[in-house]
């Protein structure tokens, strides 16, 4: 986004509001969803206007001074605009189809494209495979504290 050579020509945003507006236009913003205090449900969809959690009855907001503040908030970075943005740059878009053009067929594992799982998906869902732009995702989690202690992973 910020090319080192352009840093001298393009000035950095002067305040936070300007910076967040720029990020929104690029599709890098995030959604805020209110959550039940004990994590039973999200206050979205049909539950958006509920004041209390239907399961445990705890309130969505707490009163601080004269304003309502949500008890707990989940920040979600949507992946759809991020993946769309990858195809909007010519250099990046050609890299996104790398896995179709650069396959080795010698039976050795050079890359994840040679794995059994990858080939299985290729054979099973042919309409998915026929579009070379389609990609495969992996879900990784990190930084979760199973014991509620600060220094365990």
């Amino acid at each position, binding site marked *: 986004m910020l090319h080192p050579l352009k840093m001298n020509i393009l000035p950095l945003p002067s305040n936070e509001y300007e910076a967040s507006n720029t990020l929104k236009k690029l599709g890098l913003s995030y*959604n805020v*969803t209110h*959550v*039940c205090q*004990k*994590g*039973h*449900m*999200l206050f*979205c969809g049909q539950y958006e206007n509920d004041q209390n959690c239907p399961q445990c009855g705890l309130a969505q907001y707490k009163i601080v001074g004269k304003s309502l503040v949500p008890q*707990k*908030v*989940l*920040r*979600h*970075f*949507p*992946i*759809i605009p*991020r*993946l*769309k943005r990858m*195809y*909007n*740059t*010519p250099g990046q*878009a*050609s890299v996104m189809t790398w896995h179709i053009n650069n396959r080795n067929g010698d039976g050795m594992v050079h890359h994840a494209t040679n794995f059994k*799982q*990858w080939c299985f*998906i290729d054979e099973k*869902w042919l309409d*998915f495979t026929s*579009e070379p*732009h*389609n*990609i*495969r*995702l*992996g*879900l*990784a*989690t*990190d930084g*979760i*504290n*199973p*014991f*509620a*202690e*600060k220094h365990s*992973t």
Partner: protein
Amino acid sequence: MLSLIIPGEESMTGDNMDTYLQPLLEELQLFWHEGVWVRDAANFNGTFHFKFKTILMWYIYDFPTFRIMAGHVIKGYCRKPSFGLATKAKGVARVWAKRKPGSHITYSRECKKV
């Protein structure tokens, strides 16, 4: 690519993990079932549109998180992986965690309270 920030140390004990993953799963289902129209900038001077689909192939966890996702008990009574699926209710694990160090109540009696 970062997709979710799941709050806190106390909240993230593995309970109700599915609640926090809801928005991500909705997006992934939209990607797999319907697809999204996307413009490809590399072909035909950027006028090429296609229906973009993704598939979720792998999960990568560290070991405790893996057991949370699989629905195992990871603390307290029956916390060892060798117990497998023969674990008891999660309430037992909570009682173990709340037990005061000096108390001599047997665990079976505590389990009845839960």
